[in-house]
């Protein structure tokens, strides 16, 4: 109950400090493994942005934007994992990662994979350069649906 009140308080007395500081931004990358402790061959970015989104598509997203809003939630989970790691945040990322990759029938090689792992890469600006830093590596998980 106390936990729920803690979650509700920021809504009752909001801080409204949107975009006050532009903090380092996490990206989710994933890799398939042959076994639980197997070696990672290649890390791939989860949900890379499209090159271009048309104005018509933007208008459509005013009323129907579930994919992007889910991506924003995944970013929240990633930020929470970096601030105060919880099983909940890791599970939410895994659940959505596995669902999406499992639904991706284009890449049939995925079907052969037994384990999956993700990591968070923080992108920050140092001077004029962008730097990438691996900030979190999850424990590997069987590649099977979690819902």
């Amino acid at each position, binding site marked *: 109950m106390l936990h729920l009140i803690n979650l509700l308080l920021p*809504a009752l007395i*909001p801080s409204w400090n949107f975009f006050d500081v532009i903090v380092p931004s996490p990206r989710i990358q994933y890799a398939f493994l042959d076994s639980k402790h197997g070696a990672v061959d290649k890390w791939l970015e989860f949900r890379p942005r*499209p*090159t271009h989104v048309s104005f018509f598509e*933007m208008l459509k997203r*005013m009323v129907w934007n*579930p994919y992007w809003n889910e991506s924003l939630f995944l970013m929240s989970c990633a930020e929470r994992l970096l601030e105060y790691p919880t099983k909940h945040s890791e599970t939410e990322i895994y659940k959505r990662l596995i669902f999406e990759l499992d639904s991706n029938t284009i890449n049939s090689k995925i079907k052969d994979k037994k384990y999956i792992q993700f990591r968070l890469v923080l992108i920050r600006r140092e001077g004029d350069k*962008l730097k990438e830093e691996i900030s979190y590596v999850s424990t590997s998980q069987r590649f099977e649906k979690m819902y």
Partner: protein
Amino acid sequence: MVGFAFIQQSIEHLRIYHNEKIIFLPRAVFAGLLIVGFQTNWVVFILLGVGLLILNRFQGPYNGGADRMSLLILICLCGIHIAPTKEWQEVALGYLAVQLMLSYFISGWVKVINPEWRNGQALVDVFRFSAYPVSESLRGWSNHPQLLLMMSWLIIVFELVFPLSIVFGDILIIALVIAAIFHFMNACLFGLNRFFWIWLAAYPSILWFQQRLFVTIS
């Protein structure tokens, strides 16, 4: 408008996951009842209860500030329904109006005290590496620092002076139109569509607040 915003949010969750459907499907139905005005004094409490379930389900807001504004509106609507007198009802609705004003003013304040916002670097960083731009082509905006510097100051000045608009009659309407355009741009560029609808849903509270404060006084 609140009901429409809740339906829009809820149907986005009805695509895939069963344990989300069992929360968001009833929410969409109750939001529909809010729109048609059926038993609203019960419906707002049920929607607040569902809102708490959602908070618990996602261990926080699913969509940041948009979810927080949704809950704030519901809390204030519930306050209006349980208020023992008309004065307390006005306090509940006035609280929402004040929070709406603060949502702009505080956003402007935290920016103006940050040197990186004042020199335009913060907005360059938003486009260059933050998670928000909806496409890679939008990252190209970071190559136009002068334009982003101008945009930064337009945003800061507008957010800071927004509360003053309540004092000047029809200026408030103009300020709300500009604010809606600002949210629309955020929805297009950063995919923050839920913010657009839920902030618009709170606008009637500030229009009422202006009437209550200044028409009553005059």
